[in-house]
């Protein structure tokens, strides 16, 4: 039966069973107790129970993974923000206690355990945390509400301006998005402008105000389809200063950071880097970076949008116009940023279309919430994370796959349940490059190589496919590791680890090998085919210059008669039989190929007595098959006398074969200038056109 009182789970982590038992005994009346006898087991339980665990009682000195390391893991997975930890230990030294607090422990109980103290601390801590959670969610809701109405006001205001301008309602959103993209990229290139996430977000939001001064310009000028006269243009130009004045004269709030940034943007978003803009003719770094970014974003969006006085230009055209200076001069570094983000702009702008705008705002708010340290994890995001965790675990458990997660700090690999069982190793592996279990599966070199490859990826293309031989269940398996590098999205992009899965491609490799073999085989005799033999021979001649070889070509005498008198099926059987005999009479390193209808090629290595070897093979090819007298004519060329060029060897062997035929068949002839004329016709009738010289 479900026990209502025991709604809270407490995890006790201590290597001594006795100590766990004492604590469990004190707490089991009110709480459900989970126990772990080392750090790894604790992390494992935290992984599977997540925030269902209300409190952790954690020992410090333990085998495998000590208490400090558990705290580090908890902070890595953000559990520490949600699950309080009370340290327990006989260590009373200040440095130990201090370090535990630094790592996020909430409280500290020293041994020996006193029931009253233990119970009181546990209750207090759990209550404190749940109160705090409630508070966080209240504050988060309020912030969300106020952010929402702020954003609403800003977008209403700017839309009023836009509709009057006859601009599309998207302009304001686009400028905000572009400004954000530009500044984020700029921050990666330089820290000259002190741009943190909050500041970028504020500038992007304030960008919405850039044209509020246009409220003072008459509609005749604003919406004039043709070119403005000089006089009209002078009036138009006043909008930047007017907008800035409006903000400066706000009766309230004019000292708000958002308003101040909006002022900069309003006044100076038509200044140019070379000082030829308006209204103040500021130059270079005199123009605040906020206004510089917005002016570039404004120029781009104006080009790609249709206006009463112009058609829309394409993305590419707009980029080249800006980069060529047709819209005035901009900060060179910002132009670089524009080129860098060029590929993403269209995609991002289309995502931020009007109806999706509110979603983007919510996203921004969440981002902002997360950047507040004290609100590091609102309940909303936590419950979303929790849901994701459950989903992930569910899918991982259903998939019969080896999935893994690697983190750089602390250096650790987590493997899916199924995967760990399949590989016969633990789910949690600390210090993978030193772990014997893991090293019995993959070599250290390969592991390091994969890590290096992952580190060399970029956030834009983080996926790596790596093929490697793994030792699984005592057998070597070809495997493919598909892995994605994780790049942290803080103020600086940093490699923080990787996730991925391991796919067995043994069968795939086998099939590939089979296909390769198939392509190299003569289908009738299962000897090599001519084209493949040629490639191999050239390879061998080149790779083993110290070896001497003989290239032998032979054909079956009277084979035409067989085909004519007993039919092709019988002819094929004869060829197969001959091939079998050939195979059993050569060494494994020698090559045998069928290169024509009844012509064969042999490539054999010899040490001293080639004569004897040839004679032996020749005799083996002579005999009888089902009433047919087997007899062959053979021509041989040796590397010792004919050199190591394939075409020469082949040609000489061919001539020698011709000489053998002339001699009356059923014999073999070594190539010799005297006995073989070079104008003899080739005796070979290729079946494989690629084999012809």
């Amino acid at each position, binding site marked *: 039966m479900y026990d209502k009182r025991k709604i809270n789970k407490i995890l006790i982590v201590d290597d001594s069973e006795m100590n766990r038992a004492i604590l469990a005994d*004190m707490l089991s009346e009110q709480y459900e107790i989970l126990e772990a006898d080392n750090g790894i087991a604790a992390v494992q339980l935290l992984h599977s129970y997540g925030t269902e665990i209300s409190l952790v009682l954690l020992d410090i000195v333990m085998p495998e993974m000590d208490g400090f390391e558990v705290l580090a893991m908890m902070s890595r997975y953000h559990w520490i923000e949600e699950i309080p930890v009370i340290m327990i230990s006989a260590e009373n030294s200040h440095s130990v206690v201090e370090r535990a607090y630094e790592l996020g422990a909430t409280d500290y109980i020293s*041994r*020996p355990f006193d029931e009253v103290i233990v119970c009181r601390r546990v209750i207090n801590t759990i209550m404190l945390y749940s109160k705090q959670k409630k508070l966080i969610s209240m504050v988060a809701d309020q912030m969300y509400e106020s952010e929402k109405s702020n954003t609403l006001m800003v977008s209403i205001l700017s839309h009023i301006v836009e509709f009057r301008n006859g601009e599309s309602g998207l302009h304001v959103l686009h400028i905000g998005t572009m400004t954000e993209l530009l500044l984020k990229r700029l921050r990666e290139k330089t820290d000259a402008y002190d741009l943190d996430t909050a500041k970028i977000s504020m500038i992007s939001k304030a960008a919405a105000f850039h044209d509020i001064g246009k409220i003072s310009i008459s509609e005749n000028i604003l919406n004039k389809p043709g070119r403005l006269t000089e006089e009209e243009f002078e009036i138009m130009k006043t909008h930047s200063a007017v907008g800035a004045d409006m903000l400066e004269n706000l009766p309230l709030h004019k000292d708000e950071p958002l308003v101040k940034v909006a002022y900069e943007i309003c006044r100076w978003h038509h200044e140019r880097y070379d000082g030829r803009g308006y209204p103040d003719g500021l130059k270079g770094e005199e123009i605040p970076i906020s206004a510089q970014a917005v002016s570039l974003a404004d120029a781009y969006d104006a080009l790609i949008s249709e206006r009463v006085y112009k058609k829309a230009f394409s993305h590419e055209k707009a980029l080249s116009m800006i980069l060529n200076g047709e819209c005035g001069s901009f900060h060179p570094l910002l132009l670089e940023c524009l080129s860098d983000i060029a590929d993403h702009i269209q995609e991002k702008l289309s995502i931020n279309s009007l109806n999706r705008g509110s979603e983007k705002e919510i996203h921004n708010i969440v981002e902002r919430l997360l950047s507040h340290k004290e609100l590091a994890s609102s309940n909303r995001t936590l419950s979303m994370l929790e849901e994701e965790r459950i989903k992930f675990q569910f899918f991982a458990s259903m998939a019969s796959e080896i999935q893994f997660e690697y983190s750089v700090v602390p250096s650790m690999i987590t493997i899916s349940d199924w995967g760990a069982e399949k590989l016969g190793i633990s789910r949690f592996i600390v210090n993978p490059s030193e772990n014997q279990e893991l090293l019995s599966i993959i070599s250290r070199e390969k592991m390091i190589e994969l890590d290096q490859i992952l580190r060399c990826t970029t956030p834009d293309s983080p996926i790596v496919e790596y093929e490697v031989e793994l030792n699984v269940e005592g057998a070597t398996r070809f495997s493919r590791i598909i892995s994605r590098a994780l790049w942290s999205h803080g103020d600086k992009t940093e490699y923080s680890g990787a996730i991925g899965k391991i796919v067995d491609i043994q069968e795939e490799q086998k099939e590939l090998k089979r296909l390769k073999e198939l392509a190299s085989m003569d289908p009738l005799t299962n000897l090599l085919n001519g084209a493949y033999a040629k490639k191999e021979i050239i390879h061998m001649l080149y790779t083993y210059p110290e070896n001497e070889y003989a290239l032998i070509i032979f054909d079956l005498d009277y084979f035409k008669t067989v085909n004519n008198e007993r039919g092709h099926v019988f002819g094929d059987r004869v060829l197969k039989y001959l091939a079998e005999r050939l195979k059993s009479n050569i060494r494994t390193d020698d090559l045998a190929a069928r290169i024509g209808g009844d012509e064969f090629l042999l490539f054999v290595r010899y040490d001293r007595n080639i004569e004897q070897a040839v004679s032996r093979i020749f005799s083996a090819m002579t005999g009888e098959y089902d009433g047919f007298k087997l007899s062959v004519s053979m021509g041989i060329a040796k590397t010792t006398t004919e050199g190591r060029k394939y075409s020469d060897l082949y040609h000489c062997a061919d001539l020698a074969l011709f000489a053998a035929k002339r001699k009356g068949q059923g014999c073999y002839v070594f190539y010799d200038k005297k006995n073989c004329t070079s104008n003899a016709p080739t005796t070979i009738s290729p079946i494989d056109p690629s084999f012809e010289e």
Partner: protein
Amino acid sequence: MMLEELYQEIAGNYQDIRERLRKEERIEKFVLLFLKDTSYQDMLQAWEQGNLETAFRAVHTLKGVCMNLSFDKLYKAASEMTECLRAGDAEGAAKILPKLEKCYEEHIQAIRKYQEG
């Protein structure tokens, strides 16, 4: 024999454990459980294998257990050993070991006697 007498025999602090664990049955349960605690044997084994680090962790655990049981005398001996091993002082530890051994055996014998009534 009463629990209190047992604590007298092994120079433990009955007053203290009574205050902390509150219930006599609970104290008895854990005192008897001490017979099954392997941290002492773990330490000896690691010590014989020359593995000072594991020996340190084991005697550290023993120390924690003794503290919880208010076995003051054994706690003191285990503490000394812990500090020696923490410092990696094998020579010092070798000197202390016989004392710890004797003390541990006394505890085990006394608890067994108590168990038998």
